[in-house]
């Protein structure tokens, strides 16, 4: 009993110590947490939207940006307490304190931001009109956790590294950095489909863009209005939905495989010769999975639809199919009904125990059963 009690106390202490250790795992040299550590920190905007400015230190300490001082991104903060924020964070700013270890220059997401700007999705941080519907960096990217499934780097690894590297914090930092990149942290196909669908399935957004494009005389992609629903109806969409990992998701075709991680940021219309879905590149794109794909194969529609505006051929073919199919059924059943009537009239009838035979007198002029 006494031993168990001691162990419980020890365990409790360990938990407390571990928690306290994590609470301030990153350096808050700028003293932002002085205010932002309070859970109630927030306000209700003029539009009635509730905003939370609470930073959970223990969670932030596990994110990829944990070593970036707040004001490297929130550069407009100049005094404490600061003025109301109007511009917000842009992702193409240069870090003041983090250097790119490869080039020695200040670290920045600028290269990928520039690619994004060139893509169909490209927009400014503060955007209006049509651009406001496009995703900015933070619509897809949050500040991700290094290793969501681990509370702390595994001791047996860190213990080994610190033998030479001496500094436990240094080791933990590099463990997080490298292990995240070794693990597959790419979004799953299901996540990609649902991410793209979060905008592309929005009927109002689609309508807004279609009417705007019509007014401007611009041409939208042929599949733009039905991209998500037709994908969900396709074989790719169906099997992805139920957990297949081999079938194509949106980005497998719409992003170039040559430099996938850059390419997902620079999605291009299929008119663009650099697009993997350009008529010239399409067969090659299909070939990545369908190894025998050729130009003919690339003509098959991965976004099948029976909507009149999407595919009139299929629309009318389906209509004819329905008419013929239902007509055949009605005719056959009608024929069976008529036959039943005719033979019943002739004296055939049903009996539960004896089955069906000529048990009745015929409705014709004479009863011909002897």
């Amino acid at each position, binding site marked *: 009993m006494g031993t168990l009690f001691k162990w419980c106390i020890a365990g409790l202490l360990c938990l407390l110590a571990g928690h306290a250790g994590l609470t301030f795992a990153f350096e808050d040299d700028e003293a932002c947490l002085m205010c932002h550590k309070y859970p109630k920190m927030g306000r209700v905007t003029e539009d009635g939207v509730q905003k939370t400015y609470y930073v959970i230190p223990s969670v932030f300490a596990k994110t990829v940006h944990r070593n970036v001082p707040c004001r490297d991104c929130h550069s407009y903060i100049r005094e404490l307490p600061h003025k109301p924020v109007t511009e917000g964070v842009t992702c193409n700013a240069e870090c003041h304190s983090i250097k790119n270890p490869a080039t020695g220059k200040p670290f920045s997401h600028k290269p990928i931001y520039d690619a994004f700007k060139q893509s169909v999705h490209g927009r400014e941080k503060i955007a209006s009109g049509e651009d406001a519907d496009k995703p900015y960096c933070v619509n897809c990217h949050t500040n991700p956790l290094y290793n969501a499934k681990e509370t702390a780097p595994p001791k047996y690894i860190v213990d080994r590294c610190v033998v030479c590297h001496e500094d436990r914090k240094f080791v933990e930092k590099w463990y997080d950095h490298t292990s995240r990149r070794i693990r597959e942290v790419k979004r799953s196909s299901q996540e990609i489909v649902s991410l793209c669908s979060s905008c592309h399935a929005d009927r109002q957004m689609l309508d807004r863009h279609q009417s705007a494009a019509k007014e401007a005389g611009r041409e939208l992609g042929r599949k733009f209005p039905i991209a998500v629903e037709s994908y969900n109806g396709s074989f790719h969409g169906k099997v992805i939905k139920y957990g297949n990992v081999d079938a194509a998701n949106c980005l497998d075709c719409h992003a170039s495989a040559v430099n996938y991680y850059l390419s997902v940021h620079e999605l291009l219309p299929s008119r663009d010769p650099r697009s993997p879905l350009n008529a010239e590149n399409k067969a090659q794109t299909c070939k990545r999975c369908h190894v025998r794909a050729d130009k003919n194969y690339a003509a098959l529609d991965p976004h099948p639809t*029976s909507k009149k505006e999407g595919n009139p051929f299929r629309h009318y073919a*389906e209509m004819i199919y329905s008419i013929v199919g239902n007509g055949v059924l009605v005719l056959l059943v009608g024929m069976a009904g008529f036959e039943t009537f005719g033979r019943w009239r002739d004296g055939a009838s049903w009996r539960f*125990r*004896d*089955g069906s*035979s*000529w048990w009745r007198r015929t409705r014709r002029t004479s009863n011909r059963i002897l």
Partner: protein
Amino acid sequence: MKTRLKPWQQTLAFGSLAFVLGWTVFGLYAIWLMLTQG
């Protein structure tokens, strides 16, 4: 005029009949599916 079925024949015949009638209910459901979900 038919002779009567033996008991096991009755069982088989009506069992088969019950099976296809059950499936016919499924057929009705299939019609409903076709009409509502295309």
